[in-house]
């Protein structure tokens, strides 16, 4: 049950939080990093604009992208999303959710043959597809799965 690992992490979580805060601070002031952040893509308010501005529009459907999401979210504020690209030459993976205020949620770049697997938690206000777009050898591929976000209660 990995109790030791869990206890260890709890005891170090305060120091960890400080480290994360410092890192976040560095990110905010890091001009080089800020310059690379695609503001037009991440602040776009519609799915079409977000895809267009991020360069992920017009992807072809693919069965080689594996997505793991809950059918019904246990908590819309923390929806676990896992994606794996089995497409050779994958260089990036982007996550979109249609009904989020800013539909582009994240973009991950994979350098030098890094394994194209991501596992993140995203926030969703309402039922919508979670779309994964993969760039491989300069071409775009996509797959999606619906996640239901419900008010809860009334079960069984």
């Amino acid at each position: 049950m990995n109790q030791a690992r869990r206890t260890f992490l709890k005891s170090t979580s305060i120091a960890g939080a400080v480290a994360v805060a410092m890192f976040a601070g560095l990110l905010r002031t890091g001009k080089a990093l800020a310059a690379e952040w695609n503001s037009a893509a991440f602040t776009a308010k519609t799915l079409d604009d977000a895809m267009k501005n991020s360069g992920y529009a017009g992807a072809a459907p693919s069965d080689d992208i594996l997505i793991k999401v809950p059918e019904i979210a246990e908590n819309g504020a923390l929806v676990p999303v896992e994606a794996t690209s089995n497409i050779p030459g994958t260089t990036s993976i982007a996550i979109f959710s249609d009904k989020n205020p800013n539909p582009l949620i994240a973009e991950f770049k994979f350098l030098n043959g890094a394994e194209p697997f991501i596992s993140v938690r995203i926030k969703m206000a309402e039922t919508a597809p979670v779309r994964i777009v993969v760039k491989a050898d300069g071409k775009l591929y996509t797959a999606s799965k619906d996640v239901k976000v419900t008010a809860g209660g009334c079960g069984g």
Partner: protein
Amino acid sequence: MSMNRREFMQLLAFAAASGFALNSRSALAGNADRFYDLPSFGNVSLLHITDCHAQLLPIYFREPNVNIGLGASKNRAPHLVGEYLLKAYGIKPGTPEAYAFTYLDFEHAAKTYGKVGGFSHLATLIKKIRAARPGSLLLDGGDTWQGSATALWTKGQDMVDAGKLLGVDVMTGHWEFTLGADRVKHVVDNDFKGKVDFVAQNIKTVDFGDPVFEPFVIKQVNGIPVAIIGQAFPYTPVANPGYMTPDWTFGIQEDHLQKVVNDARAKGAQVVVLLSHNGMDVDLKLAGRVTGIDAIMGGHTHDGVPQPVIVKNAGGQTLVTNAGSNGKFLGVLDFDVKGGKVADFRYKLLPVFANLITPDAEMDVLIAKVRAPYETKLAEKLAVTEGTLYRRGNFNGTFDQLILDALMEVKGADAAFSPGFRWGTSLLPGEAITMEHVMDQTAITYPQTTLTEMTGTTIKTIMEDVCDNLFNADPYKQQGGDMVRVGGISYTCDLTKTIGGRINNMMLNGKALDPNRKYKVAGWAPVAEGVTGEPIWDVVSTYLRDKKTIAPRKLNLPKLIGVEGNEGIA
């Protein structure tokens, strides 16, 4: 008055003699024991109970007359009610089986054949069936530690002890978790240790995804390794308060299930069974997608389905069963395993007719001991009902209507919501409604009542949301409860539409509901943490004591669109 055992048998004999059906075995019988003579078959037998909802004593339970299936589920088990169900399974009307499996002629049949279930009666029946099936296993699909006053007041201890005495070998869960994660872990690590295997492949820790329980257990049955995999209710933290199990995540976990099945087979299992609390529609979909499972023995949706549904998949076939609720049925699955695999099977869902079975003395003692400290409180007569009171049905039940009426009157509300739970026993006309009966409908660990100001838009959004949990076209997105019961507001429900378009023509006191106006809405069973309010059982008992006589309820039912030719509605 219900009849005693001898009268019951005389009636069976008479009915048979006069050409009134009954199955041939009982018709020939002439004695109660023969009614439950079930020839043994094969070499691996699994007995299955599920969703007893802590009903230790025999009860009445009226099956639904509305259990609608849409799309691929239309007019197929479990979405067949009344005469449609009888026809599909070749059960003759007017028989004990018709009484057990349908709502037909409920009041008369209930008086004739008496109460069903009861752990002492179940214990005797299980002993009899197991005597002819050496090495058999008893599986409990969960929803065992919740549903009665004594289960609530003893934090499920009465049912933990009763389950052990009954001889349960393997269990999974759902409502158990509403006692809190710590309580469940305590029982599994102490009371159940070395006696009952509590299994759940689909519960993991939120932080690292570590398993919380063993995913499966392999039992040797007459020298044959049999794997029982546990599938807890996947949407426990959605349908019930998530704060009860804050560190656990659930879900269907189909990919993981396939790995667990493969693992069990690799470890030598010749029979693989999923003990499931998914609900039958989810189980039917799952059976077509996951390979290597011989049978899914299911619960949650409380469907008394006389025969398994056989689902073909890439690996062969999987049987899917559902064994009803409230201790009313005992499922018996006999496998003939030859050459390392299942060659053939027999299945019977036996109704537990209390009048036909001599109660088990040891279980009687346990039940009497459990109830003793509470008897006076349980027996308090609050009112007399003039009509039948029941809960089960997609949109409303008379007991739910009574709860809605009580909520609206006691709270001074314009409208009321009551959850679409599927547990809760039935009462016959003329019976006294006791505190125990009220608790049978309300005994949960989050019983607070609320009075909330909601706009018409909010009311519609809630109703659409719950309706979609019932009628979403994808079974994996259904939660297995019924529609929220609505008091005060009439509406139409268009089953040809999707979420947002089903609930229409909402009217309150003859006026259309104003989307922007605020209404006072009473409710109970909040899933959010920290809500305060008088427990629902106090609200209902206050109302009943005041009324003394409860006239037959007028059900607030929606006008349904899109149910022509649907055999899930009578």
